[in-house]
């Protein structure tokens, strides 16, 4: 009897100490965000104070960001979502088509071509950036949305991820579909694609987040302020009006929000996708 009680309290102590450690780590990691939100609610003069708390919450800071001179925050938001959506749609579409060809069709030279794809995955992206920029100049696509979207619409990584997943869908389905007289397109559209949904969702999230956060390419390509995406927009905000820390923090907070929403909604698929892409990598 006494043994049981000891064990109960022993387990209890362990549980509490574990939670204490985890809480401390979590709080340390979240503190910068806490400061960000609180600073965004302050009057500018309060920023340097020791206390993190605003005297009176200045909720209008968030509205003011949208009406600042030279800062097209709403426009940037829209640009980013627009560009990211297009990139995501095109990349998922082309990747799944290619993956279907690599994983479910048999043709001469298939494995060689796939190896070529694999080999380019290890190339540093920077190597291709410079000639790509030159080509964009030649095509006259600098400072246009098309120049942001088109080069990013094809991805060796996406193809690889989709192929890994499609390889695991039972081959017998193909045969069954063939007996029913389905064309290859029907096989792709009606059989394989619905079954590859988890991989599609994962790739969608990855691509969207990747292009939402992308700094390098838009920075190189975009010249007119009202065509900026959020990352470069924030950068120009920082360099032109960076002294207004409260407004800057409000903008930072708002630009992080879509990420958080996606993460909370899609957490499960995301974690699964990282395993899929990482473990086999």
């Amino acid at each position, binding site marked *: 009897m006494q043994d049981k009680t000891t064990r109960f309290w022993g387990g209890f102590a362990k549980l509490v100490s574990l939670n204490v450690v985890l809480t401390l780590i979590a709080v340390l990691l979240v503190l910068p965000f806490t400061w960000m939100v609180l600073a965004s609610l302050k009057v500018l003069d309060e920023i340097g104070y020791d206390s993190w708390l605003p005297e009176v919450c200045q909720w209008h800071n968030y509205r003011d960001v949208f009406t600042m001179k030279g800062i097209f925050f709403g426009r940037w938001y829209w640009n980013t979502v627009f560009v990211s959506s297009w990139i995501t749609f095109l990349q998922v579409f082309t990747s799944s088509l290619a993956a279907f060809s690599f994983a479910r069709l048999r043709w001469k030279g298939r494995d060689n071509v796939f190896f070529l794809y694999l080999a380019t995955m290890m190339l540093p992206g920077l190597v291709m950036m410079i000639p790509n920029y030159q080509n964009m100049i030649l095509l006259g696509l600098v400072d246009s949305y098309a120049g942001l979207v088109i080069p990013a619409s094809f991805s060796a990584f996406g193809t690889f991820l989709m192929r890994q997943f499609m390889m695991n869908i039972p081959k017998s389905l193909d045969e069954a579909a063939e007996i029913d007289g389905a064309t290859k397109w029907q096989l792709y559209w009606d059989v394989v694609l619905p079954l590859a949904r988890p991989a599609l969702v994962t790739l969608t999230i990855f691509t969207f987040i990747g292009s939402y956060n992308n700094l390098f390419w838009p920075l190189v390509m975009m010249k007119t302020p009202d065509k900026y995406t959020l990352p470069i927009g924030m950068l120009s905000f920082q360099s032109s009006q960076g002294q207004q820390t409260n407004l800057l*923090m409000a903008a930072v907070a708002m630009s992080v929000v879509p990420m958080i929403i996606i993460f909370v909604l899609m957490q499960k698929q995301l974690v699964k996708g990282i395993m899929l892409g990482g473990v086999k990598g």
Partner: protein
Amino acid sequence: MAISKKDIKEFAVGIGFLLPNILGFLAFTVIPLVMSIYMAFTDWNLEMHNYFRSEPITFVWFSNFVKLFSDPDFPQYFGNTFFMMIGIPFGVAGSLVAALLLNMEFTRGDGKRKLVVMMILCAVMAASFGLLAALGLGATGMTILLVSLVGGVFVIGSIGGKTIYRTLFYFPYFTAGVATFILWKKLYNPLNGPINNALRPLLDALTPVVIMISPACQAIGIVLLVIAGLFFLHMVRRKLRLWRDGETGIISVWLGMILLSLPLVFCWSWVSPTWMHVIMNTPEMKAVASASGELSFLSRDAKWTLLLMFLFLGIGWGRFLYAVYIAKRGFKCVADRGIGDSAIVDGSAMVLNMVLVGLCCVFWLLPEGASAEAGLQPPKWISDYYWAKPSLLIMGFWGAIGSNNMLLYLAGLSGVPQELYEAADIDGASSWQRFWHITWPQLANVTFFIMVMSVIGGLQGGFDMARVMTEGGPAGSTTTLAYYIYTQGFNTGRLGYASAVSWLLFLMVFTVTMFNWKFGNRYTNE
């Protein structure tokens, strides 16, 4: 081999599906790749080849590469790239610890126990609030804020368990980007940033203590160096034992020896003024440093340190060369066996030793700072030449704990067979032994994968941070190769030169990838 009609049809269908992708692949990967090689050997410059001017592009052979290696600033940028990779083992260790904690049992027992736990936790929280209010501490908003933050996370985490903590851990990594870099730039603000605001009272309290112990500081520094040296010898002994037992081949022993020796060799750069000159190559920086006398700050101790480090290096290398090439005791085994062990364990030991040597430097510098008029001052973080890289490393660590690596480790942990732990329990193994003899070897392939990927990422990294937070400065101290390529290619328009640098980067990435292909699988199978 006859090509039948069926073959052609299959090929046509296959390529048909591939078509949209392969067009893009050709246009944005293959063609640029070929172009990039060509550009690296030309003087392609946007100032000469644009809409308005089109002077002929000349093929300049290797002069871009010659220019690169004769650029006095280049060694610094090269070194910065590697310096920033010091953060990798720390980040990986952080995510491993986080994964191990999250993998512990949260809800052992039944629901009733959990309810009891919850009630007690809430009672404790309420009591601590009451206590704070009674002591009058709760009167300041900051205390309330911190206590409620801790309490909130604690209660929600205890109820929600793993998922809540995992989400909170993952948060910094997930949101990483321009936004969080801007946030950290504000946090690091030396005058009124929250970090320095919090540090100032702490350092004020610390100043008298440092003045008190300042006579001992030099001794402490030397003790730290001795510890670093002994640790080096210990790791050498471990390496040689593994070699004797036939668990590591000669290549990995050499790799391990080189990695382990690096911190002791680089000691010089911290303690000897001439090496400092090599690192700080820009003339302005030299002027600033020599004006403030910073360059000579450790010269009086340099000789001692050199002597010490030579002693340890000599003993270690002597033992190694004697055991391997003269006494030749040891099982013969494949030359590259155990190379993963060298990369991971010795790499981490190297970083640890670097930290020890760095700490020694800190102790030697402290008394000077404390005896200054204003006492110890918090660092200027990203606007300070010496602190800029460590600042970025701290920020990187913040994001690296709850990263994808943590999730990979969690997946790896769930794959460890439970029977191993049960067997260990029967043998009465301590939890450290359980970790070191079961968990760590079982996770070896995950660790190897993470390390290789991080190194590949690290070689190409540092652009976003440098662009948003420091613009590569102060005095080039945060300019990595990636940022250098950007400034050369897109700020000054020297596309040819930038291509040459990017091909150097490619060669390094390629080497690591080859290393992975050659040894990664073998290490996994062992």
